[in-house]
């Protein structure tokens, strides 16, 4: 869901920070990562910008079973934020690599 104050046609201010949460998978373990966008590689940053600039709040339904699912919360420099749900097939590998499971 995009934040209601932002018009979908207006250009977004640059990305400041991102939080990626992974769920699902055969193990069903939650995993997440939070980072400043300045710390991302140019490739990761480009993938992230491409992903959040697409309007739909969710990308891909994901066929089969035990696939991962991702929830991305992106915060822009102007303070606005957006949340999108992305299936594993639609999630760029370089962004998936940011998320590592941790032991309870």
């Amino acid at each position, binding site marked *: 869901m995009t934040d209601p104050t932002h018009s979908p046609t207006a250009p977004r201010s640059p990305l400041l920070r991102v939080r990626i949460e992974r769920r699902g998978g055969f*193990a069903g373990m939650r995993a997440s990562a939070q980072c400043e966008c300045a710390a991302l590689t140019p490739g990761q940053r480009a993938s992230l910008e491409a992903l959040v600039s697409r309007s739909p709040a969710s990308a891909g339904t994901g066929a*089969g079973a*035990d*696939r991962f699912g991702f929830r991305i919360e992106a915060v822009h420099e102007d303070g606005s934020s957006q949340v999108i749900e992305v299936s594993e097939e639609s999630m760029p*590998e370089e962004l998936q690599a940011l998320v590592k499971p941790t032991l309870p």
Partner: protein
Amino acid sequence: MNRDAREAIGARLCPLCCFIVPPVVLRKYSSDPSIPPATRRAMQQTQLETERLRGLREAHRIATMRDPQRFAAALAPHVPQQHLYDCKHRRNLPGTPVPHPGGTFKTVFDTTAKVVEFYGSVLGRNSLDNKGFDLTSSLHYGVEYDNAFWDGQQMVYGDGDGQIFGEMYLSPDVIGHELTHGVTQNESGLRYERESGALNESISDVFGAVFNQWLNKWPVTEPRGWLVGAGIIAPAAKAKGMTCLRDMTQPSAKHCLSPQPEHYADLDPSADVHENSGVPNKAFATFARAVGGHSWELAAKVWYDTCTNRRLRSDATMSEFAALTIESATRLGKAALASKCRSGWQEVGVAVPDD
């Protein structure tokens, strides 16, 4: 040859309906100038066709004598074939074919064959679709990929990160779990969200665990038989006391890498399907342990009946599923079995019809 006889032959003979006429007769009359040309042509064609079919029949007779198995298989139900692929740490499916599986590929091949045998000999099912569906497995998917999945067509296994998870195919129950997703897809098609999704997951855990018990000949009293993913726990997770991903007899236990709520009232409806599957998992484990003996002899047959008798809706709730299992138990084992099944569901707080 008189006119009546000629007319009779002319009326009867056509290339498609006179195979019963001996070739010698066909040969003789096809060159008889007293018979109309059209009829003679028909007789010639019939003779040629008869010879062609005779040749085919003879070729088939010889071939079946030389290789009877091959021809028997054409009529028999399809025996599922296996296809293995190596993703070579990329994410392109299915990957590169592995025509002669060795090492880890052989492990997957052998365990997958055992799952097919389990479904065939215990539950009377011919592969995932009950029509001999060929089984495709891809290994070494991605880099340190901590997952195994069913993509709607095939099984995919990662190597794990080596610290928390090991190679995903090292637990037989994981292979049984993934193949069972294919069975569910072909039967009830339980939707992969909310309660129906948790049931879909639980059914894969149930038949994955029962397969592992069958493989090891473990009775229901063997605690290892109720662990999901015991074989994929890597050293760092073991060092913290983790022995499995999930424990069907005690889903919230501390030795589970992925602990789950044990009671229906504690479920968050929006939680991941792998989180909410602990409730139906425990219901089954409680039921099977109350029945005793080997889970595959009776308890699993009750669950399998519910999963395949076409009454289970794709959007079923846990309560609806529970009611169907009690009906299956009544059919397969009368009131005593149904009572144990009902108790299993009551143990986890799922509402069931009155006795």
